[in-house]
């Protein structure tokens, strides 16, 4: 009897958790773009999002993006967290903009890649790259096509014309579970997660005459970016390329019926343990 109770309790709990996964969850994400020219510092997006694994929708995406050109030659240390050992500048990206027309779709599901690409901006609009020769002004491909030149170019002074936008585009695989997801990409051989290979960032911040670090703009009109040459035809402006991405479950937000089942399971487990103790 007590054995039956214990087993059924565990089963109900597992079922409850599984049902909870087939729902909306909040996740933490760390996406790293390798920066060969600023080693040991990389461009890293650390943030969170909400994911519905039925609709594959990615919402509430926000986080911080490191500026690998800033700070001392010290790497970001996950154990100590942001500015734990590193002293890079981190840009806050809070605007996951709503999709507009075809060229202003910032979050979309790609069946071929088996996942969702989602973009979060610093500004409340997407304008990042120059549109002097056409292009949508923000997509990684548009950035590659204009050599990473700022929006507003060639007007001066740059400080006023450049909207100083920044963004991170991440990839959430369809098969994301509470166990999380770890993806990697090897730009040298073109192997790894093709979804991750589609990720990109751009950073056009500048602090004119600050005397301190000022990591966004790179050389005159060119900002910092990372892209894979296998996908977009060129690597980032400082040779940045997609490298790795780790997604972990932050907190599960199960739906009501899953809650009930889970509670029932917990109840049964509690009963079983009580009986166990009694029998001793």
């Amino acid at each position, binding site marked *: 009897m007590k054995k039956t109770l214990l087993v059924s309790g565990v089963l109900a709990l597992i079922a409850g958790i599984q049902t909870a996964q087939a729902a909306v969850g909040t996740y933490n994400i760390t996406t790293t773009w390798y920066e060969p*020219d600023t080693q040991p510092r990389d461009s890293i997006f650390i943030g969170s999002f909400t994911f519905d694994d039925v609709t594959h929708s990615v919402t509430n995406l926000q986080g911080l993006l490191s500026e690998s050109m800033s700070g001392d030659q010290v790497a970001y240390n996950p154990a100590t967290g942001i500015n734990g050992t590193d002293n890079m500048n981190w840009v806050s990206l809070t605007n996951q903009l709503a999709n507009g027309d075809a060229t202003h779709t910032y979050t979309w599901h790609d069946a071929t890649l088996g996942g969702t690409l989602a973009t979060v901006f610093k500004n409340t609009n997407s304008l990042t790259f120059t549109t002097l020769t056409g292009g949508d002004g923000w997509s990684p491909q548009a950035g590659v096509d204009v050599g990473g*030149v700022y929006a507003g170019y060639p007007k001066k*002074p740059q400080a006023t014309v450049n909207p100083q936008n920044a963004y991170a585009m991440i990839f959430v695989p369809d098969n994301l579970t509470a166990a999380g997801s770890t993806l990697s990409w090897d730009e*040298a051989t073109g192997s790894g997660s093709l979804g991750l290979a589609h990720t990109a960032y751009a950073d056009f911040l500048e602090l004119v005459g600050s005397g301190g670090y*000022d990591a966004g703009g790179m050389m005159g009109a060119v900002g910092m970016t990372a892209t894979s040459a296998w996908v977009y035809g060129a690597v980032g402006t400082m040779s940045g390329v997609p490298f790795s991405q780790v997604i972990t479950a932050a907190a599960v937000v199960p739906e009501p019926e899953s809650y009930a089942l889970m509670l029932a399971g917990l109840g049964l487990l509690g009963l079983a343990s009580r009986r166990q103790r009694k029998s001793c």
Partner: protein
Amino acid sequence: MNIPVLSTTRSRKLLAKSVATLLALAAFEASAQEIKITDQKTADSLQTPEIETQPSQPESEITNVLALDPIDIKASRIKDSFSETSNLSKQDIAAKRSKTSDTTELLQGVPGASVYSAGGISGLPVMHGLADDRLHVQVDGMSLMQACPNHMNSVLSYIAPTSVDKIEVSAGISPVSLGGDNLGGTIDVKSKAPEFAKDGEKFLVKGDAGYFHRSNGNARGKNFGFTLAGEYVNLTYAETSSESDNYWAATGGWKKPGAWKANKVGVSLGAPVVAERDVGASEYGGALNRDLGLSFRFSEHLFRINLSRQQLDYEGFPNQRMDMIASIPNPTDTDFPPSYIVDRSKPSNVNTLVNFSYKGQYDWGSLDARVFHQDLRHHMDMIQERNYGMYMPMDTKATTVGGMLKASIDLSERDTLKLGSDFQSYRMGDWWPPIAGGGSMCCNDFWNIRDGKRDRVGLFAEWEARWNPKWLTIAGIRNDVVRMDAGPAQGYSNSSYKKDADIFNAQKHLRIDHNVDWTMLTRYTHDANQTYEAGFARKTRSPNVHERFPWSTFAMAALMNNFVGDGNGYVGNLDLKPEVAHTFSGTIDWHDADKEIWGVKATGYVTIVDNFIDAQRCITCGATNKKTKNAYVILQYINHSAQLYGVDLSGHRLLGRFDDFGSFTGNGVINYVMGKNTTTGDNLYHIMPLNGRFSLAHRLGGWTTTAEIQTVAAKTHVSQVRNEVPTPGYSLLNLSSSYEFKYARLDVGVDNVLNKFYLLPLGGAYVGQGNSMTTGGVPYGMVLPGRGRSINVAVNVRF
């Protein structure tokens, strides 16, 4: 990528055959004395009627000119006495001028010589595998300096090919009196020696003017010069200008695909679109060389003062990440630091020289003295076809004061003693102004080298003895003290650059090297047909300022420091020791008595270098940088050991001489060199693979027509630490024809007649398009291709 070139095996076979032919010819000529004498007689009898119709020497040489023969002969006695010296005469040079506007390229075809590609007029010379600063390169006796972290100011760019009268190449075992601070010998490029009116003549008035055009790259230029001379005074002026668009390879398809080229039609922000076969950033414009010389002669004394200036508006460097081009703060910009704009019509490079020399003949011998001053201003940024929105102004400034005093004392009929001293005082700065919006380039001047100093004083003694008509020896010793220093380093900002700058600034920068060189040379003249030479030398070179002082390991800064065109970035090393080379060299020279009918020459050499300045991967630049085999990397200079050896073979043979059809002469040159880093077992960088040139020349009256085959084996021995890229072998056919008479010379030629595609073994990495400021912006693995077919025309008139 399908490269239509001669297969390696085929070119190897061709070379092997040619070597065999040359050797067979040599053996035949040397052993069969009897036959040879008959041969010569036959040749002589054929020759006699021809002599009058032989192309007259250029008019300038046979005018009533009193050249300073006594002084010249005496002064250059030692140099002339060694056949290891390859003299490129006026005639050799004239034939090559129509092919190139780069003085360094005139060395192509000299046994043992090759050229590192750079900008259109700035190739770097190589002798026996030793290049650039490992050679002592002089222009009109001046030991000039470069200032740029990319060695864009090749010393030979300070003189235009049209002004070159004579080139003396003394490879390897050069006498110590020719200079120290080198491993591989001396290249002395000379403009025309002053002429004076002959006794009884009032005046000598001469002039010349020329124009050339080469179809590949639409290269064109003109030159003009005149001489006014009396019996004691000579005034000479020469001016040369040239320009070229990007040159092109025979075909496209050698560039990696992708958007990195940043030149899609309609998307390139107005930057010129570079065609697939075109070599981006290989154009140059506004190149202008001017030289004004004033000479005085009083009996046995010659005083000469030359004022010259080389300037250039822009010059692209397809194997460097920067170009010579002027950029200025945008005048409408209110930002600080300002944004920059490129100005193609403003000189980006101005080199000014004042050269004062004295040469005098005395009872006891001769005296040579020289003082010169060099002032160099140099600015770099990016030619806009690389990346329209990217700027990186870089400035260098250098002054050099140098000179020498040399006495040649005739101790006896047998012995001559040369005593002397030379010095060079070099001051330079290499800084990069900050620009607006530049995260990595804000907000201070970046000082790559601040207050750089390199002073050298040399002392030498050399004894030449002519023991008897057969034996001649030279023994010399010299000491050079090289003192180098630099001020504090400074990055654009105190962030990314601070750590490296702090490390550099905490160290002592002053370095003093005491270098000792010696040379022993001997020549044995067996008879009129055979000469043998052997030499042994110790040569020392102190590091240059850009090997010792650049301090930043930040990739973008390191990529700016590179003078070998391999696409990598370099970091200096304060603790470098001078390179010390021991060279043994031997030469066999077999020829007919007058050196007219036939000749074969072979030189073999071995050079062992201690503290050879090679490179290692930067240790603090990430794990990938340490191990990658297919990317551009960051390197640091380091002392290793190295060994080089090789053979030069050259030969010529008069094949026939006919009254009505003129004469036919066959010529051949074969070069072989190997270079190893004996510390790591790696190959040395940019070692020219086995190569040869074989030509057949026909001369009739003033006409000379030449067909030349140039064949080069595949380069398979590559430097792994630098990720050097192998190149396939190839063969080219060149045709040229010239007609010369008293008042003019006309050159017409076709280079690469069959329009073969080939990669230059010493071309280096192609980074002339796209974002060159970063290690991966331009895909790794492309090599600079050679020129496709070019039709060359040059006209020169004399009056």
